[in-house]
């Protein structure tokens, strides 16, 4: 769908050359939600702006839908851009136009006749959940509603790809979630490929299928979101994973647990992304004559299932406890006996 080869961008400024994107290679499949995460200055915005040539690449190639974007002339690029929607951190709506007219703008650009424009805009207003707000001006909307207009506008010409540059970074957590839900909804309903830039692992966790971690203009790690969560290799990645999984209370808990729960066994369970094993605890207590005490834990849902760790105490006859643990080890949940931080 999108294949990026040796993409490089150098900004020439008065005092120095800034290498913002450095020989970046990436391939993004049709219909997936691909997240790119990185800290400020990693080159994320530059990267996504290269994808529709808002920024001209210094070198390298971008192929989108079997079309070589980097080789297109200015006028062909304009047409190609109609197939690439983009939404922005600060929404970038025209304040002088109503919601309706904002969404109609890309259709005007594409030369869609008035009649068709009207029905298409109304369809989009419904799709993003803004029915009845067509005549409002952007200044009369909340941030979340503005981003919905941005999304409707980006979808107007039925693009194949949607580029999102920090689309939720200006929104509060609840609104962020509702916008992310809308993106997933659109991805599923329309089969749209989404490329999403963020510095929040939460966003990646919640909606992305695959992720690339960027640092100093390079992709340092990439893969299925769950794999990256489970086996982060690079330091940056580990820091990002900690953002959502990090659990500062765990060490304190362990101290208390080691003192107070001396009976039976304290074990740590790693849930690694399979929905089938979420009922493990009730399963174990049903099969064996043991009590399972939940002591501490954090489980997060990703697009590919649950992920997280949990500390439990298993108490009962020694043989029963042993059998229970042995049973748990046969499942896909990873079991760690007497964990110490």
């Amino acid at each position, binding site marked *: 769908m999108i294949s990026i080869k040796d993409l490089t961008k150098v900004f020439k400024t008065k005092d120095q050359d800034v290498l913002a994107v450095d020989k970046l290679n990436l391939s993004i499949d049709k219909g997936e939600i691909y997240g790119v995460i990185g800290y400020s200055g990693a080159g994320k915005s530059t990267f996504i702006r290269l994808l529709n040539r*808002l920024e001209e690449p210094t070198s390298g190639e971008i192929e989108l839908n079997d079309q070589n974007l980097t080789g297109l002339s200015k006028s062909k690029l*304009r047409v190609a851009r*109609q197939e690439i929607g983009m939404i922005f951190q600060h929404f970038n709506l025209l304040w*002088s136009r109503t919601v309706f007219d904002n969404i109609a703008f890309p259709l005007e650009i594409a030369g869609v006749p008035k009649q068709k424009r009207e029905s298409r805009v109304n369809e989009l207003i419904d799709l993003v959940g803004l029915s009845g707000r067509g005549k409002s001006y952007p200044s009369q909307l909340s941030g979340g509603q503005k981003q919905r207009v941005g999304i409707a506008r980006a979808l107007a010409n039925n693009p194949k790809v949607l580029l999102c540059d920090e689309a939720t970074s200006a929104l509060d957590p609840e609104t962020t979630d509702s916008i992310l839900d809308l993106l997933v909804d659109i991805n599923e309903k329309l089969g749209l490929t989404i490329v999403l830039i963020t510095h929040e692992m939460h966003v990646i966790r919640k909606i992305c299928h695959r992720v690339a971690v960027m640092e100093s203009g390079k992709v340092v790690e990439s893969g299925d979101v769950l794999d990256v969560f489970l086996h982060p290799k690079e330091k940056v990645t580990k820091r990002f994973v900690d953002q959502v999984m990090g659990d500062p209370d765990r060490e304190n808990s362990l101290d208390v647990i080691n003192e107070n729960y001396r009976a039976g066994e304290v074990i740590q369970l790693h849930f690694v992304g399979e929905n089938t094993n979420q009922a493990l605890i009730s399963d174990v207590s049903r099969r064996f004559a043991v009590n399972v005490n939940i002591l501490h834990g954090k489980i997060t849902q990703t697009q590919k299932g649950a992920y997280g760790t949990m500390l439990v105490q298993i108490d009962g006859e020694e043989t029963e406890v042993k059998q229970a643990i042995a049973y748990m080890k046969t499942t896909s949940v990873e079991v760690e006996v007497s964990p110490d931080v």
Partner: protein
Amino acid sequence: MFEQLFPNVEMEDMVEATNETLYMTSVSVAGTFILGLVLGLLLYLSGPGGIWQNKPLNWVTAAFVNVFRAIPFIILILLLFPFTDFLMGTIRGPGAALPALIIGGAPFYARLVEIALKEVDKGVIEAAKSMGARNRTIIFKVLLPESMPALISGITVTAIALISYTAVAGVIGAGGLGDFAYFYGFQRRAFDVVAFCTILIIIIVFVFQFIGDFLSRKLDKR
């Protein structure tokens, strides 16, 4: 009452002078609006980071604007005598004042236009580009509508400057209230005529200001 306060004021003359002032002002405001808009757009679009970024064009436009803005209006009228004669076929009357008024007003307005355009959110222009907009679309559907309140308040300020220029244009016998106040008021020591002309000019200025403020506020949906 009126007779006592303004013994020398002839209503008929006043109406004629007011009409001349209004004529000169409205035509020159229209001309200044168009020429100033073109010059301001050129300044902005050819400037650094603009969609027609072009150093020589930017330099020439800026030079033109700066030179004509630097010339005092009274001297500009005299300098433009040959040009006015060629263009209007006369160097007297309200029509003869128009070239000087427009050429004096447009550079001033052009700078205000440039400032107004610079205030347009870069992100919105970028969004339009990302949708595949042509430059023409960006100018007419993004830049101008998004800066309209500032363009309107700019032309209001310019219009008020032009009203006082029309009074100065009296020196070439352009007519209008300023001319009338000087020749029929001041020179005949009929100071009531001067005062009455002043009142009329102030009223005209207030009306322009009111209309400008109203439109600008009405268009501003921010």
